């Protein structure tokens, strides 16, 4: 019974958890509810992945309405993989969240934070699992609205402006997406993704379908912060509560990338999106612009959260680069980077949350010598920073390896050079921070910072350890990513 209804549980668990958290109103109890829900969601996601890897795609009819009339939840390798990613991050950071939220958010608002956290989780898993284009829009809005709220709960007053900015941009993105879906509905009469893919073949030469693709790609690109549609992201990440930043950085943009992959490869098909339209050069150009532009901007940031936010924009460039290559190796690189970047950025933002907890600032000039004061915590920053750079032995290297190999396979040596050159800028912005943290004498304020709670350090190090582990053992990451890439390249099934 439970086994059959896993796809529905994946979404319903966090939804009900959110309602309970909203009703209990007490921060601590809401946290407990969130923890239970988060762990349960994670177990469902794992169960789904195991099932899919063993028995192929699962189709689930919501309310027993047969698709294409009813809504279908459809799980295959790629979205099972994304579901695991999202729910792992959501669950793992919860022990940390309790301490961090207790510091950063006032008691009467804490339960709301956890409610929004679960709603966001519900929205993200919903986007990922659904096989229906409009249903995806609904979940997109669920996740977006809850995200705006989480950001606005940040202690810094600028968090309100950041949330508002994201609200405007996010709404434009969602509107573009829904316009595109509307155009597809007009042309094909269906919203089911599998159905769409078969019916699109007959009408794909029409301008309406091209326009639909354009609207959908631009709309999703806003959500995934593809350069130059990223302007909402740095402020949102910088001023949101630390936990919200960790969660968003590791999951929200990744889910948007998944949706883009789903439309480009499963619905429209690679031959149409990359063959008949000029998507490859466009995506390549924007990806490379992101890799360099955002990295260079990151090198000039004094607020470490902003620095990592710009770095995220750059890293998304690597993911879209892999998509633009549209080969098995390239796509594997892009998809595996979804995961690798998620854990790397989560680790880094977790460390910054600790820094904020202890020192009440994340401005680099205020943190001179912090590495000597909190060696264990800040060593975590160094290791995760190495993964961000893509040093071998870390998760970041695996992504880079695939991307460079994909570029060389195509004979595009210039692209390989660009990939490695841009990661060099990461050496500069990570190295700059490491130098200040470790090789300047601690200032008086730094010497007086309080000790970090063990649970926060342990959570951060768990994620840091993951960046190293997945640099050595890639069965779960590159292995699954490669399967996903193959199934995506086979096109509409």
């Amino acid at each position, binding site marked *: 019974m439970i086994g059959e209804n896993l796809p529905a549980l994946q979404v319903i668990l966090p939804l009900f958890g959110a309602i309970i958290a909203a009703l209990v109103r007490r921060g601590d109890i809401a946290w407990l509810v969130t923890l239970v829900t988060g762990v349960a969601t994670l177990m469902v996601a794992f169960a789904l992945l195991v099932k899919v890897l063993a028995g192929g795609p699962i189709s689930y009819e919501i309310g027993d309405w047969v698709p294409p009339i009813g809504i279908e939840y459809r799980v295959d390798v790629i979205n099972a993989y994304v579901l695991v990613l999202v729910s792992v991050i959501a669950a793992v950071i919860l022990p940390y969240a309790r301490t961090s939220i207790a510091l950063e958010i006032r008691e009467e608002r804490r339960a709301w934070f956890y409610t929004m956290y679960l709603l966001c989780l519900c929205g993200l898993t919903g986007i990922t699992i659904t096989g229906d284009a409009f249903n995806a829009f609904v979940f997109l809005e669920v996740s977006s609205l809850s995200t705006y709220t989480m950001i606005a709960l940040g202690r810094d007053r600028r968090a309100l402006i950041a949330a508002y900015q994201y609200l405007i941009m996010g709404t434009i993105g969602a509107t573009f997406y829904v316009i595109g879906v509307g155009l597809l509905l007009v042309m094909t009469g269906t919203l089911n993704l599998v159905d769409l893919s078969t019916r699109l073949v007959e009408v794909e030469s029409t301008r309406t379908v091209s326009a639909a693709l354009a609207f959908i790609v631009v709309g999703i690109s806003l959500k995934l912060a593809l350069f130059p549609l990223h302007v909402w992201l740095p402020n949102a990440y910088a001023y949101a509560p630390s936990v919200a930043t960790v969660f968003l950085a590791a999951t929200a943009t990744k889910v948007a990338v998944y949706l883009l992959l789903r439309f480009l490869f499963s619905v429209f098909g690679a031959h149409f999106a990359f063959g008949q339209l000029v998507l490859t050069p466009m995506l390549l150009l924007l990806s490379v612009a992101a890799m360099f532009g955002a990295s260079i901007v990151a090198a000039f940031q004094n607020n470490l959260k902003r620095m990592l936010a710009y770095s995220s924009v750059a890293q998304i460039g690597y993911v879209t680069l892999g998509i633009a290559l549209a080969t098995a190796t390239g796509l594997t690189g892009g998809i595996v980077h979804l995961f690798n970047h998620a854990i790397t950025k989560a680790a880094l933002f977790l460390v910054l949350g600790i820094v904020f907890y202890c020192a009440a600032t994340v401005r680099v000039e205020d943190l001179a010598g912090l590495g000597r004061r909190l060696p264990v915590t800040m060593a975590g920053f160094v290791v995760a920073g190495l993964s961000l*750079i893509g040093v071998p032995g870390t998760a970041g290297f695996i992504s880079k390896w695939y991307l460079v190999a994909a570029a060389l396979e195509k004979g595009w040596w210039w692209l*390989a050079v660009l990939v*490695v050159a841009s990661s060099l800028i990461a050496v500069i912005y990570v190295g700059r921070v490491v*130098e200040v943290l470790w*090789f300047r004498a601690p200032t008086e304020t730094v010497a007086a910072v309080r000790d970090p709670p063990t649970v926060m350090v342990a959570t951060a190090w768990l994620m840091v350890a993951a960046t190293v582990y997945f640099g050595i053992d890639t069965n779960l990451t590159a292995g699954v990513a490669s399967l996903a890439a193959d199934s995506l390249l086979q096109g509409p099934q």
Partner: protein
Amino acid sequence: MNAGLLVILALAIPTAGAALIPLAHRFPNLRETITLVTAVALLFVVMALLGDVLGGGHPAFVLTTVVPGLDLAFAVEPLGMLFGVIASTLWIANSVYSIGYMRGNNEPRQTPFYVCFAIAIASTIGVAFAGNLFTLFLFYEILTISTYPLVAHKGNEEARVKARVYILLLMATSMLLLLPAIVWTWVAAGTIDFAAGGILAGAGLSAGLLTVLYTLYVFGIGKAAVMPVHFWLPAAMVAPTPVSALLHAVAVVKAGVFCVVKVTVYVFGLDLLAETDASDLIAYAAGGTVILASLIALNQDNLKRRLAYSTVSQLSYVVMAAAIATPLAIIGAAFHILAHAVSKITLFFAAGSIYTAARLTEVSQLDGIGRRMPLTMTAFLIGALSIIGLPPLVGVWSKWWIGIGAVDGDQTWAVAVLMISSVLNVAYLLPIVSRGFFLPPPGTAAGDKVRRTEAPLPMALAIGATATLCLVLFLGANTIQTLLAMIVAVPAELAGNLPGGDSHGR
């Protein structure tokens, strides 16, 4: 004992040392004991492996597969074995020396210093025993990263700026050139495992592309310091002297030239290079570096900087010999890794002793230093003569083999480079000695008695040991040659030219 287990142990021992040292933070004597015990234990393990390799063994195994085709693999072959022995032997001497130096100079933050040192040695061993390019690259990068804190150790503005140059140049070259070269090799040859005879022979790359690839490798291995990617080495001299001694005369730079030789022999293969002349360009670049760096060394007044440029010059001996790519030149290259290591560490030890005992850093300040520190300066003289290449010191063998290898490959210009360089070596090293012994110390007349002030005992012991090694290895060349001849199949008609070979010395 199982040879694979020995390799794991060789990596694990210094790593365990690095993990244990911070625990003894409050007890310096215990901390230093950990360093010494790990150093000795490592040498035992490496020596056990050496016995295996000399007996014809080639322990090789895959630890784990990272990505299909991309293994974390180890394979011990004679070249790597030699490098492993050098690094682990000199680590002991250097540990003893470090203890004297760090305490004698009251250096701050000694615990992180010893931790980074142990990690650097572990990664050096990893480089030595790597079974494929990925594993090599992994440990190469760990070596870069673990030595960055050592260069920035002083924590002042100068140290920070120079450490920046260090990390940026080494990471930039490895990421921009070495990594693409490795991926290119993977795409072209379908494998990145080191194999006797090379793996690129059947890859179908033209002579021009092979030249590009070889150039990418040599400049990508920034640690080999072929001009113009040598800037990091003088910059790294801001580090405490034991770091300069072990890392920037032995482990780091030798990892660089070792990688060049390894790539030459086991990725390209000597036959392929002989057919295509793909490495000629690098041979010329390295030859140029030998001369140019020696000329720059002549003009350095700072003793450590002079030694640093001397190192740049000497490293290019190895690269030049590797790029000449004849079997005998490869033997010369490998031998020079050893010869230069023991000679240059002696010179750096001397420089550090002079700094510790007399607070002198510039060559022009060293008048009469030999009368204050006769032991140190005698050791310096031995190291200098070995670098110049005079018998009965170890440095003579490598020049001998590189020269013969060059003639064998019709690259006689390289012999001229060796000769000019030797003259320049005399010009920048021996004046230091003569100034130290024959000029009166400042403020004294020629006949005055000068008080002897040698460096602390651990430092004196270390410097005595490495100077002695310069002599011993001259005599023990036969064993080393047996090991090195296993790297390349030496043609029978040339075997007579090998000192210690069948037609020689019996």
